[in-house]
């Protein structure tokens, strides 16, 4: 609400928390992530309940190629790190480096998505379609929801990069960047569980 009281260029150390609106946004987003936790939790629960119902389709053990997924995991983890660097750059008011780190993050995200799409196409070829069995439906829904989140994150951060270029780092754009960073970490954390519960556990027979 007091956005106009700050003079451009004299950003405080944590510009995302400089205004009440910024603080509201950050807190609201944390709470939203709490809700997202339940969302993914329910998806996990559904997947866990249905994962052995493969009918005639391939089993998890047969299907998954762990090396590929581990590689995807590494990419996403790295992108999480680069997004931290972006936020650090923001706190040091280094707009240029902020933008660069965000671009790296987006690129890594795109890489992850490409791997995932490749993986899905491969699975469908193996006879593991969305409608094959309860296992396949819940697998694609869980992993797909995550993928959709990644996609949304990529679009969002891209938009922020454009805005940062045009408007620079202000008390209005800073909370957005910060919140997008949190979102990106959250996606990463969810993926850690997907990797563990879906892929690694799927391989344990």
């Amino acid at each position, binding site marked *: 609400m007091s956005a106009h009281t700050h003079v451009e260029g004299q950003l405080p150390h*944590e510009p995302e*928390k400089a205004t*009440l609106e910024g603080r509201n946004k950050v807190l609201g987003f944390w709470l939203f992530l709490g809700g997202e*936790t339940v969302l993914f939790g329910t998806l996990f*629960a559904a997947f*866990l309940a249905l994962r052995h119902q493969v009918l005639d389709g391939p089993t998890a053990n047969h299907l998954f190629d762990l090396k590929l997924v581990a590689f995807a*995991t590494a990419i996403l983890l790295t992108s999480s*790190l680069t997004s931290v660097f972006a936020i650090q750059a923001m706190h040091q008011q280094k707009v240029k480096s902020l933008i660069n780190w965000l671009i790296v993050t987006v690129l890594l995200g795109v890489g992850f998505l490409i791997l995932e799409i490749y993986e899905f196409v491969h699975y469908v070829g193996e006879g593991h379609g969305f409608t094959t069995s309860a296992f396949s439906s819940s697998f694609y829904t869980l992993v797909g929801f995550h993928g959709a989140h990644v996609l949304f994150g990529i679009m969002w951060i891209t938009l922020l990069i454009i805005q940062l270029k045009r408007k620079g780092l202000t008390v209005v754009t800073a909370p957005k960047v910060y919140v997008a960073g949190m979102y990106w970490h959250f996606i990463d954390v969810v993926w850690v569980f997907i*990797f563990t519960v879906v892929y690694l556990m799927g391989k*344990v027979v």
Partner: protein
Amino acid sequence: MASNNHSATEQNTKRHKVEGPKKHIVAFIFSILLTFIAFATVIGGEINKDFIYIILLGTAVLQVFVQMAFWMHMKDRGHRFALIGILTGVFVVFTCVIMAEYWVWW
């Protein structure tokens, strides 16, 4: 605006020094390491199944702690409600998952 006075408790009142990237890189290495441990346990195989599950879940949970604390600034001050929010979410998830594992195919 006066009405945000009270929320001063919610934000960092103390300006801390600009943080370096070191601890984040350490967190990153930790995460990779934990992932690798989990990965290796599964690939290595031949251990008791329940034991593998425990290692897998253990490493995943640890990794989440690391990431939440360092990358999402959860350990910093001013995250009381964020913490409550996430923990409540986790609690609900916990009940959901228990449901899934034990009661759907009883």
